[in-house]
């Protein structure tokens, strides 16, 4: 479904990604693991069309995403929930969700998607008219995910959804992610919280200093010595 | 090293030519144009310091020009010897700059630009209201009016201005200013005292601006006091600096010559004032496509010449 082939990405003059290749099949939850500054966000932003790779290509269901503007990427069915959550702080929760459905497909199916989102995160319905900036961290993350869902994506990319959240809230979020995958949305998940990520993802890529250094099935990675030393020692639960 | 010697000898040659110009020609139009160009060099270099090197787009430059002009005019016409009147004018401008500098630099970016613009406007309105009558040179001075001494004073002013910019360019101050211009926050964390550098730049910039005003006051036969605070005295040097090449030593030089020549040439064929529209277009072209102005164009051109022998 998603095929990233040999992309190099620069931030201005600084090279951020070296020869990255990655793929994701329909229905999968794939994880991208790495420490701070490894290039995870850069990769997601590139797929989403915010950055253009200097070389290589990004294919999504046969269409070259790297040649499309970001609004087309959303229309094609790829949605990114960024690290900073990407919400509109002075607009109401409902307005935020509505704007998530801005693209044609999303708008058409807005009402039923809203129902699904409220089913996942009932608090969003309660707080509908509040300015999004007044929500707590966990609620904002739920809003961000809900917003992403309203664009009716085939692939939902999540950049560190658990960041700064308490363990209980994190568990809720990950349960929601699992539910989202169950209704047919493929997920590309970037996280630092490795253990819980590997528990829901089927495969994972490990990225370090802008390069993919390891990848494989979650089970194998969990048992891999190197991975355990490098990453499972940095769990923050 | 030979490159430097070449530059110095070319510069010296031009300077020598300029010095003897009034001796080899009596055409008043050449002298007048040259005199104006030199004044523009002085004024535009002064803006170059604060706008080009420090990167602070000061749109209130006319205020300093005007203060220098009025101070010099009244002191000179009150029988103070010209050099003192000019000095007083320039100092007045600088004093005002230091006065408003501290509060002004509390404003960042766009607020600074708008603030300086509004400040100059306030001065203009006040002066227009308080001094509505034009100041005309009294008969005895008018009788002996000659462009020549005005030419030489303008030449001295222009040379001083270029020398000042040259000095800044090759000094620690210059480095600091460029750092501030490129990335103020980064400069602050590297230990640059932002406010001090900006104030110094402003002071160094407004002294020649006031001097330019004073020379203008000496040069003009009749002056409407409000006129020397008009926005044109901010905008002309800004145009010159940008089109010539901002933040360079030669840029304002090329820009001034280009400006005066083009202005004179266009006034022959186009209705009065239309030269501004042409400059406006050039200005936009520079901002969008040639951020380093004519200096860049010439550099590329001379490279081409070198490549093709």
């Amino acid at each position, binding site marked *: 479904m998603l095929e990233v082939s040999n992309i190099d990405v620069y931030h201005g003059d600084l090279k951020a990604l070296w020869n990255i290749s990655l793929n994701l099949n329909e229905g999968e939850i794939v994880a991208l693991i790495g420490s701070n500054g490894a290039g995870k966000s850069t990769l997601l932003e590139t797929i989403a069309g*915010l950055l253009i790779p200097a070389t290589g290509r990004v294919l999504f269901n046969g269409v070259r995403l790297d040649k499309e503007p970001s609004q087309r990427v959303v229309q094609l069915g790829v949605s990114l929930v960024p690290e900073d959550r990407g919400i509109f702080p002075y607009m109401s929760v409902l307005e935020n969700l509505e704007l998530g459905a801005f693209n044609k497909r999303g708008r058409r199916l807005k009402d039923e998607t809203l129902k699904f989102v409220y089913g996942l995160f009932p608090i969003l319905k309660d707080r509908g008219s509040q300015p999004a900036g007044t929500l707590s961290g966990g609620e904002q993350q739920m809003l961000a995910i809900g917003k992403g869902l309203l664009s009716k994506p085939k692939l939902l990319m999540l950049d560190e959804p658990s960041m700064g959240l308490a363990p209980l809230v994190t568990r809720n979020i990950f349960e929601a992610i699992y539910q989202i995958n169950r209704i047919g949305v493929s997920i590309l998940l970037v996280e630092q919280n490795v253990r819980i990520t590997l528990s829901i993802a089927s495969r994972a890529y490990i990225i370090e200093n802008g390069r993919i250094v390891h990848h494989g099935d979650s089970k194998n990675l969990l048992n891999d010595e190197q991975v355990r030393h490098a990453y499972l020692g940095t769990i923050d639960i | 090293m030979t490159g430097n010697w070449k530059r110095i000898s070319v510069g010296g040659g031009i300077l020598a030519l300029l010095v003897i110009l009034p001796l080899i020609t009596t055409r008043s139009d050449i002298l007048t144009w040259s005199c104006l160009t030199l004044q523009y060099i002085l004024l535009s270099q002064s803006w170059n310091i604060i706008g080009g090197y420090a990167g602070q787009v000061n749109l209130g430059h006319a205020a300093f020009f005007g203060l220098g002009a009025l101070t010099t005019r009244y002191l000179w016409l009150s029988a103070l010897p010209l050099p003192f009147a000019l000095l007083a004018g320039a100092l007045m401008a600088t004093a005002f700059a230091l006065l408003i500098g501290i509060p002004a630099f509390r404003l960042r970016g766009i607020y600074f630009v708008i*603030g300086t613009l509004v400040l100059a406007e306030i001065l203009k309105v*006040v002066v227009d*209201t308080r001094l509505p009558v034009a100041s005309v040179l009294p008969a005895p001075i008018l009788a002996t009016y000659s462009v020549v001494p005005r030419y030489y004073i303008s030449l001295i002013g222009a040379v001083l201005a270029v020398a000042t910019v040259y000095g800044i360019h090759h000094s620690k101050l210059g480095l600091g200013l460029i750092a501030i211009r490129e990335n103020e926050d980064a400069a602050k964390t590297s230990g640059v005292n932002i406010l001090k550098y900006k104030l110094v730049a402003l002071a160094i910039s407004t002294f020649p601006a006031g001097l330019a005003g004073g020379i203008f006051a000496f040069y003009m036969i009749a002056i409407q006091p409000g006129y020397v605070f008009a926005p044109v005295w901010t905008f002309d040097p800004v145009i010159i600096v940008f089109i010539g090449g901002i933040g360079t030593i030669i840029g304002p030089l090329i820009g001034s010559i280009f400006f005066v020549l083009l202005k004179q040439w266009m006034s022959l064929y186009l209705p009065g004032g239309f030269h501004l529209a042409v400059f406006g277009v050039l200005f936009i072209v520079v*901002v969008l496509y040639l951020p380093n102005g004519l200096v860049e164009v010439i550099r590329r051109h001379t490279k081409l010449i070198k490549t093709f022998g």
Partner: protein
Amino acid sequence: MFEFLAQTFVNGINVGALYGLAAVGLSLIFGVMRILNVAHGEFLMIGGYVGFWLFTLYGLDPFIGLPLVVIFLFLFGAAFYKVVFARVAKFHEELRLKNSLLIGFGLYLIFPQIAMLLWTPDERAISPVYSGKAFDILGIRFGYVPLGGVLVALIVIIGLQLFLTQTYFGKSLRGTAENWKAAKLSGIDIDRTFMITFALGISLAGLAGVIISLIQELTPVMGMPWTLKALIVVVLAGMGSIGGVFIAGLILGIVEAVSAIFMGPYTIAIGMLIFLIILMVRPQGLFGRT
């Protein structure tokens, strides 16, 4: 005494409504695009002249002709954006602001000259039959034209509010203003949004220009003073607060009207001085968010 004060107040509101109208387009463009169009007054001037043409050549009443002026300037603004400002909008924020400033400056040099060619430097005005006429209530004079101006201002505020809060596109404008990256990720076409916002801002400037030309002279050089006025109102309201612009305009209008009683010719200077002080003390304006 009451009559005098009340009249001053009414005059202040009349002028203040104009200030708000003049400033709202500028605020819109800045809020969404972070571009400060210092040629705003030039477009205002063009709008005035277009209204003047419609009135003088076709006898079209300026109030009725407003929609035409708006449409024309909308298209004009969109074209301008594509040709000139689109490049600047691609830069990142600081450079964008500085460069848009400089480009606006270039336009400020060009427009008056073009206007002088097209309409001569002579002062014009749009003077339909009812201009100058007024009616009295309790000894207070309400001019027809200024009243029309206030009404137009009200319609614009309400219309703009409805547009921004009730329509999808309007909401996307607000979203883009708050977080353009998030807007992009929501599937909003930022380029198109910018172009339409810019065109809208310009058409609002033109609309203001028509009303102003009913009250003041229309000259090729009226652009810059009105740009300054609009700038002051926008900063006073707070960059990015579109609704606050009208309130700020009214406040400025009333303050000027009152201070004119004491300060006479220095009134303009006082307004600007107050502006500078507020800039120092509270740069985010009355309603702005930091």
